[in-house]
C-alpha cells in the first residue's frame, strides 16, 4: 500500500461505499424498499397500546392440569411470547417448556379452521349450522336407548360446571374423565391412608426428600410449582437432600444427590425394609400398631437386597439420614403405581411418611374450596376401560370427546378404535386433528387456549385458594373457530332455556360467575372494576393455611407385597414407557419447539429410542443406534438402542409421546408409541392400568441408524487421552491450586 495516494482506511471506505452502491445495483438502493409493504395503523386502540412496545396480558396455560398463570407479550394485536404471571402462586412468574411452546399450538399451520362432517367415509368441511344441527339431534333423542357420553381429559372450572349441568338437564347421560398418565392409584392410597386424594407435599419444608420415582421436576403433576419449592428446598440454611429410587432415571433423578436404581415393582419391598429399620427406634415405633411392626419384620436387609437388587447397607444409611435431616418427605411417583400390586406398592411407600410422622409437617391438606363444583377432576384409566366395554357391547349411542385422545394413548388390547366404530355418533372438539378426531363423524374447530376465556382450578394448591383466569391474548385467527364454553352454552340453552338464556355467550356467563364469586375472595370493588381487576391480575387468590393431615388405620393387608419373580422366560425384560416433561402423554408432540428440545437425559430430538443399560447392551452385542425389535404379547415396536447407565439392567425404556399416526406435520410418523403394546395388567385394588408391568423380548435387527442428538461422544475418548481423569481419592487438592486467588 505504500507509494499510493490512498491509505488503508480510505481504501476500505471507498471499496465499502462502492461495494454498497454496486451490490445494490446502479439504479438505486433496492434493498431499501419503498411502497412494497403495507404499514397500517390501528383504527382506535386503547391508550396504552404503542406499536413496537409489547403489552402483557394475563391468562392461564392449559398444557397440563397445573393451570400455571401466564402472561403473554402482545404487540400490534399479536401474541408473541408467553411468560409466567408473578401473581400466580402456582407459576410465580415462571413457565416451563410446554408453556413456552403453547404459542405454537396457537399459530400451528395445521389448525382446524372449519367444522368437518363425515360423508361417504371421509371428513369434509361443513358449516357450523349443519354441525350444530347434527349435535342438537343428540339432545332431542333423549328417549332412544343407549348412553350419550362426554369423554374428556382432566377438567376443572366452569367447563366442568356446564358439562355437569348439561348432563343434569338430560343433554347427555354421563361423563368419563380419562388420563393416560393417571395417578389414580396414588389417589386411592391417599384416600385410604389420609382421607384426601391429593395431600399437599411441602417440599421446601423438608430436610430430605426420598422420592420413589416421583418426577416432580419433570413430568410430575405440577412441575413449575414443584421446581420453585425445590429451589427453596436447596437454598435453605441447611441444604435439602434429594434421594431418588427408581428403575429408570427421570429428570428429578438426575438432580438427586443420590440416585438408586431398583428392580421395577419392588419399590414397596424397599420401603418396607426401610420402615423395618426405622421402626427399630422407639421414636418412630411408638405410633405404629404392633400388627404393622410384625408385618414388616420379614423385610431384612438381606431379603430386601435380594428382591430389589439394591445394596442392603443403603437401608441403615438412609434411615440415619432421615433421622438427621428431619422433617423428611417421602414421595411415590408413577413407577411404583404401575403394577398389578401398585396400590400395595404405593401404600408401603406412604407408610414411610406415617412412620416418619411427616403428616402435619411436610404432608398437609389443602384448604377446602369454597366452590367445590369447580374443583379439578383428575382422570383415570378404569373409566375408559368401562366405557370401552360398554362401547363394545353396543351400549353407547353417542360419544362426545374433548381434550382426550384414546385412539392414540390407549393400549391396543382395549381395541378402542374398533369399538369406536360401534358408536353411532362420535364428535370431537380439537384445535388440530388427532387420531381420535380423525375417526369421528363430526369434528369441531376450537379456539386455541390463547384465544379463549375460561376459569381453572390448579390441581395442586399449596399456597391458599387460587382460581386462575384465562382470557384471549389476541383476536381469533380463524373466523370459524369457536369456544368450547360457547358450544356447551348453546346446548344448554336448548335443554334448559330458562336458566341460560340470560347469558349471551360464555364470556357473559363467566363474568356473572366471577362477579358472584366476589364474597368468596373478600373483594370490595364494584362489579365491573372487580371483573377488570381479575382479568388484569390473571388470578383470584385467597390466603388459606394448609390444614393438618391425620393418618387413618393401615392394615398389613394394605401393604402386603407379592412374591417376586414368576416371569415368562419368553419375555425377559420389563418395558418402561418413560414419561418425559416435554412429551407427557403425547399431546404436546405436535409442537415443533418441543420436538426440537433435546430430551433432558439422552439429548435425542425428533425421535424415539430404546434405553438399555450398557451391561445389558454388551451382553446382547448391541451398539448405540442398533434398531431393536421390542415385542410384548400384544404387539411390537422398533426403536434404536441408546446406552443409558441410568436404568435397571433388566429393563428397556421407550419414551412416551411419539408414534402419532395423524397429528399434524410435526408429530405424524415420528418415532414409536410404547403405550400400544402394553399388557392387560391392572392394579388389583383400583383396576388402573399397570403402566410398568409389561414384559418384552428384545431382538436385534440387522439395521443400525444414527441418532440426531445434541451430545457428542463425551463419554467415549476412543482410546485417546483427550480428557485425563483420576479418581477423587488419588488427587492431592493442595497441589492442584498453584495460583493465588486474590
Amino acid at each position: 500500500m505504500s507509494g499510493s495516494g490512498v491509505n488503508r482506511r480510505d481504501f476500505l471506505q471507498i471499496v465499502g461505499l462502492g461495494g454498497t452502491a454496486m451490490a445494490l445495483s446502479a439504479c438505486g438502493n433496492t434493498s431499501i424498499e419503498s411502497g412494497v409493504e403495507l404499514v397500517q395503523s390501528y383504527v382506535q386502540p386503547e391508550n396504552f397500546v404503542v406499536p413496537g412496545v409489547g403489552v402483557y396480558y394475563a391468562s392461564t396455560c392449559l398444557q397440563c392440569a397445573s393451570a400455571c398463570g401466564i402472561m403473554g407479550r402482545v404487540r400490534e394485536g399479536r401474541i408473541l411470547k408467553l411468560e409466567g404471571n408473578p401473581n400466580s402462586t402456582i407459576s410465580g412468574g415462571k413457565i416451563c417448556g410446554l408453556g413456552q411452546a403453547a404459542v405454537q399450538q396457537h399459530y400451528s399451520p395445521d389448525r382446524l379452521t372449519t367444522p368437518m362432517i363425515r360423508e361417504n367415509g371421509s371428513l369434509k368441511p361443513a358449516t357450523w349450522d349443519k354441525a350444530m344441527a347434527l349435535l342438537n339431534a343428540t339432545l332431542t333423542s333423549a328417549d332412544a336407548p343407549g348412553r350419550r357420553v362426554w369423554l374428556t381429559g382432566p377438567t376443572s372450572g366452569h367447563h366442568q360446571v356446564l358439562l355437569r349441568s348439561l348432563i343434569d338437564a338430560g343433554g347427555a347421560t354421563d361423563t368419563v374423565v380419562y388420563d393416560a398418565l393417571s395417578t389414580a392409584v396414588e389417589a386411592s392410597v391417599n384416600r385410604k391412608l389420609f382421607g384426601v386424594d391429593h395431600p399437599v407435599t411441602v417440599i421446601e419444608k423438608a430436610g430430605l426428600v426420598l422420592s420413589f420415582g416421583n418426577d416432580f421436576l419433570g413430568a410430575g403433576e405440577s412441575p413449575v410449582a414443584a421446581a420453585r419449592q425445590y429451589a427453596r428446598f436447596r437454598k435453605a440454611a441447611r441444604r435439602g437432600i434429594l434421594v431418588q429410587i427408581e428403575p429408570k432415571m427421570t429428570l428429578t433423578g438426575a438432580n438427586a444427590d443420590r440416585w438408586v436404581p431398583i428392580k421395577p415393582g419392588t419399590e414397596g419391598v424397599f420401603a418396607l425394609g426401610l420402615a423395618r429399620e426405622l421402626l427399630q427406634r422407639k421414636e418412630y415405633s411408638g405410633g405404629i400398631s404392633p400388627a404393622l411392626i410384625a408385618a414388616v419384620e420379614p423385610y431384612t436387609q438381606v431379603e430386601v437386597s435380594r428382591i430389589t437388587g439394591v445394596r442392603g447397607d443403603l437401608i441403615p444409611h438412609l434411615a440415619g439420614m432421615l433421622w438427621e435431616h428431619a422433617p423428611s418427605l417421602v414421595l411415590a411417583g408413577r413407577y411404583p403405581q404401575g403394577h398389578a400390586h401398585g396400590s400395595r406398592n404405593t401404600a408401603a411407600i406412604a407408610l414411610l411418611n406415617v412412620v416418619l410422622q411427616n403428616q402435619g409437617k411436610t404432608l398437609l391438606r389443602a384448604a377446602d374450596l369454597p366452590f367445590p363444583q369447580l374443583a379439578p377432576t383428575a382422570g383415570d384409566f378404569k373409566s375408559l376401560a368401562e366405557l370401552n366395554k360398554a362401547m363394545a357391547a353396543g351400549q353407547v349411542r353417542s360419544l362426545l370427546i374433548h381434550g382426550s385422545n384414546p385412539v392414540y394413548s390407549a393400549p391396543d388390547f382395549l381395541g378402542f378404535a374398533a369399538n369406536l366404530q360401534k358408536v353411532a355418533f362420535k364428535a370431537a372438539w380439537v384445535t388440530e386433528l388427532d387420531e381420535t378426531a380423525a375417526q369421528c363423524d363430526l369434528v369441531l374447530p376450537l379456539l386455541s387456549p390463547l384465544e379463549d376465556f375460561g376459569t381453572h382450578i390448579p390441581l395442586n394448591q399449596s399456597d391458599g385458594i387460587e382460581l386462575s383466569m384465562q382470557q384471549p391474548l389476541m383476536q381469533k385467527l380463524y373466523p370459524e373457530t369457536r369456544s368450547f364454553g360457547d358450544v356447551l352454552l348453546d346446548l344448554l340453552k336448548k335443554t334448559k332455556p330458562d336458566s341460560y338464556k340470560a347469558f349471551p355467550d360464555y364470556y357473559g356467563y363467566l363474568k356473572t360467575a366471577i362477579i358472584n364469586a366476589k364474597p368468596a375472595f373478600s373483594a370490595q370493588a364494584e362489579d365491573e372494576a372487580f371483573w377488570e381487576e381479575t382479568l388484569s391480575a390473571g388470578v383470584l387468590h385467597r390466603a388459606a393455611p394448609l390444614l393438618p393431615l391425620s393418618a387413618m388405620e393401615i392394615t398389613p393387608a394394605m401393604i402386603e407385597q407379592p412374591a417376586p419373580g414368576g416371569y415368562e422366560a419368553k419375555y425377559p425384560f420389563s418395558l418402561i414407557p418413560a414419561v418425559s416433561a416435554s412429551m407427557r402423554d403425547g399431546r404436546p408432540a405436535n409442537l415443533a419447539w418441543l420436538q426440537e428440545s433435546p430430551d433432558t437425559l439422552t439429548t435425542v430430538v425428533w425421535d424415539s429410542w430404546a434405553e438399555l443399560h450398557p451391561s445389558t447392551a454388551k451382553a446382547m452385542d448391541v451398539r448405540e443406534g442398533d434398531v431393536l425389535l421390542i415385542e410384548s404379547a400384544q404387539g411390537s415396536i422398533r426403536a434404536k438402542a441408546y446406552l443409558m447407565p441410568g436404568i435397571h439392567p433388566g429393563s428397556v425404556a421407550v419414551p412416551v409421546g411419539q408414534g402419532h399416526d395423524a397429528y399434524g406435520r410435526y408429530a405424524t410418523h415420528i418415532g414409536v408409541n410404547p403405550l400400544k403394546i402394553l399388557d392387560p395388567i391392572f392394579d388389583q385394588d383400583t383396576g388402573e392400568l399397570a403402566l410398568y408391568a409389561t414384559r418384552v423380548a428384545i431382538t436385534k435387527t440387522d439395521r443400525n441408524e444414527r441418532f440426531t442428538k445434541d451430545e457428542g461422544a463425551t463419554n467415549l475418548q476412543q482410546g485417546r487421552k483427550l480428557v485425563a481423569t483420576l479418581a477423587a481419592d488419588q488427587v492431592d487438592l493442595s497441589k492442584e491450586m498453584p495460583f493465588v486467588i486474590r
Partner: protein
Amino acid sequence: MWYPLLVFPLALAGMSIAEPLQKGDHFGTFGPHEPFKQGGPIGSQTPDGFNALGPVVEQPIEFPHYIHVEKMGIDCLYCHTYARRSAVSGIPRLSKCIGCHQSIESVKDKPRIKMLLDYWDKKQAIPWKKVHDEPDFVRFNHERHIQRFIFQQERPTREACGYCHGDVGNMTTARRVKALSMGWCISCHQKDHKLNAVSDETSHGPNDCWQCHK
C-alpha cells in the same frame, strides 16, 4: 497491488480500467453537489450526495403533509407520536385524524376527506404503503434518535426528522429522498461531535455491528 480489486466495480461504474484511482475521486454518478430536483428519476442524486431518490409511492389517500405542516404548523410528533417512545414512529391511528376532521366543516366535502371519513365509518384501517422500509435484518430504533436529537440536544423537530426523511413538510405523501443505506447511516454515525456545550469531549454514534443488526 490493490487496485486490481477495484476492476469489477470500476468496470460497472463505466470508468476506464486503466486509470488508477486518485485521492478525491468519486465513483459512478456521485458528482459534485447538484441541486435537488423534485420529481427526479429514481436513483438520481439527492441533496446529500448519495444516489438514492426513491420511487413515487401511491397511497390510498394522497395525504398532503404540506397543508398540515407548513400551513397548519402541526408538529411531526403530534401525529407520528410513537417516535419518541418506540422503535417504530407509528402511522397515526385513524382516530387521530378523525379527532380533528370530525369537526372541520370547511373541508368536510373535499374528496380526500370524504375517503377518510369513509374509512372511519367502516372502522377500517387505511392501507398505507411503507415508504421508508429498511430490510428486516436492520433494526432501526426511532426512540433513541428522537430522544437524542430532539429531547437531549433540543434540535427542532422538523429538522431532526428531516435528517432522514427529508423535508416531508413540503411534500404531499412522503417520498424517500435519502439513501437510508448502511453507508449513509454510518457517515453520520462517524461524525464526531461535542457532547455538550461546556466540555471539549467529543463522541460519535455507535458503530458496532450489533447495535443495528441484532
